[in-house]
């Protein structure tokens, strides 16, 4: 690091939680060094292919994700005339800026059985669960201890079907694959994905947020994207098999069967690999 800095007394503040390890560090830097320090801490989007943000000392999976500046002595701005809103700014020459840097745990790849992360990007994973309830017709069912006993027609058989949300968040993306996101939304996995059998994972969609980088000298600010992909797994486990989004319960003969319109199932299978490839290399 080339910009001179001091770390203030009282820093760092560290926290361990369900979100992983997070921390906040506070520094003093020369007021004039704000942009240069931001480049060193958060990196520049064009420096893709390597580590773009500094890691927390001693923790290789914890990175600087946010930087905030405030004047160290807010009561002592320089004497200057500000001709207009776009023509000047308070300055504190010869004094310090207080830099507050937030760090967060970002593993390169949370799931070893998940998609690969491109160099310089990170894939984090979270899981949430819920359930659907499927009413099954009693026709075709029999009592296990005495099949001769009639199963009433009004017997309510309800199968609880677990539904799992898989959230894969792709960090530090410079060129998101917007076309792939649009193309694959509403489709199911054609092959095993996140250790789930084919056609059990439905790609619901994506949230995309910008993470601004430095490089504010001229033109638009550079930034990377943080994209959260949401997949919904529906796995009906029955008779030693796993049935997914294209399978429905049939009364006669009873069982879970794939439904088509003669050529295509309800949900089109697709390869989700392109969701994790930058548009530049598609």
């Amino acid at each position, binding site marked *: 690091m080339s910009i001179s800095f*001091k*770390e*203030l*007394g009282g820093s760092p503040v560290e926290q361990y939680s369900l979100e992983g390890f997070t921390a906040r560090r506070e520094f*003093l830097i020369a007021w004039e060094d704000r942009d240069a320090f931001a480049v060193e801490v958060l990196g520049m989007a064009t420096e893709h292919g390597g580590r773009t943000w500094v890691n927390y000392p001693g923790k290789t999976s914890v990175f600087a994700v946010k930087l905030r500046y405030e004047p*160290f*002595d807010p*009561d*002592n701005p320089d*004497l200057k005339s500000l001709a207009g809103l776009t023509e000047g700014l308070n300055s504190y020459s010869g*004094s*310090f800026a207080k830099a507050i840097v937030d760090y967060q745990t970002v593993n390169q790849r949370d799931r070893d059985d998940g998609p690969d992360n491109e160099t310089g990007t990170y894939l984090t994973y979270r899981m949430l669960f819920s359930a659907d309830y499927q009413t099954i017709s009693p026709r075709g069912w029999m009592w296990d201890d005495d099949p001769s006993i009639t199963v009433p027609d009004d017997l309510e058989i309800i199968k609880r079907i677990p539904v799992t949300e898989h959230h894969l968040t792709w960090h530090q993306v410079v060129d998101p694959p917007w076309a792939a996101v649009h193309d694959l939304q509403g489709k199911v996995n054609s092959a095993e994905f996140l250790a789930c059998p084919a056609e059990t994972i439905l790609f619901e969609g994506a949230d995309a947020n910008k993470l601004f980088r430095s490089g504010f000298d001229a033109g638009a600010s550079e930034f990377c994207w943080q994209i959260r992909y949401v997949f919904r797994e529906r796995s009906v486990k029955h008779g030693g098999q796993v049935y997914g989004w294209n399978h429905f319960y049939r009364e006669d003969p009873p069982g879970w069967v794939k439904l088509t319109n003669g050529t295509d199932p309800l949900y089109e299978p697709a390869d989700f690999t392109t969701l994790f490839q930058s548009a530049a290399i598609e």
Partner: protein
Amino acid sequence: MPVISGKDGTLYLNTNEVAPVANWRLKKTSSNKHYTANDTGGCRKRVAGARDCSGRFEIKATETGNTPVDEGETVTLKLHVDESNNNYYEVPAIIDTIRTDVDISEGKIVAYVVDFSGNGPVVAHGVLSKTGGSTSSGS
């Protein structure tokens, strides 16, 4: 090197000399911010902060003279330490309080005790300036 006696000090409010003035005092400060960091060796260090001033002057009441200031009034004070007209502070100020002391039992002279705060940079003239000439507390 002869020292300066305060007996010839004067006070001007805007451009008018105020009399009779019993005393005046001025305190100039810097709001220095302290910090400790990895390189301060367990000690506090400081950076110079915003400059400020405050003070007080006492005027004796006369039978024909009006109170020279009101509370909340902004004025420019010239606080002379001697009669040379060269050695004085020029202080933009705002009046904070006016206290009137009337001692009925002892019959002391009625006095207005006026407290003020700075309202801009103080300019020190003559020997009161660190470098000689004139210097502003804003420089």
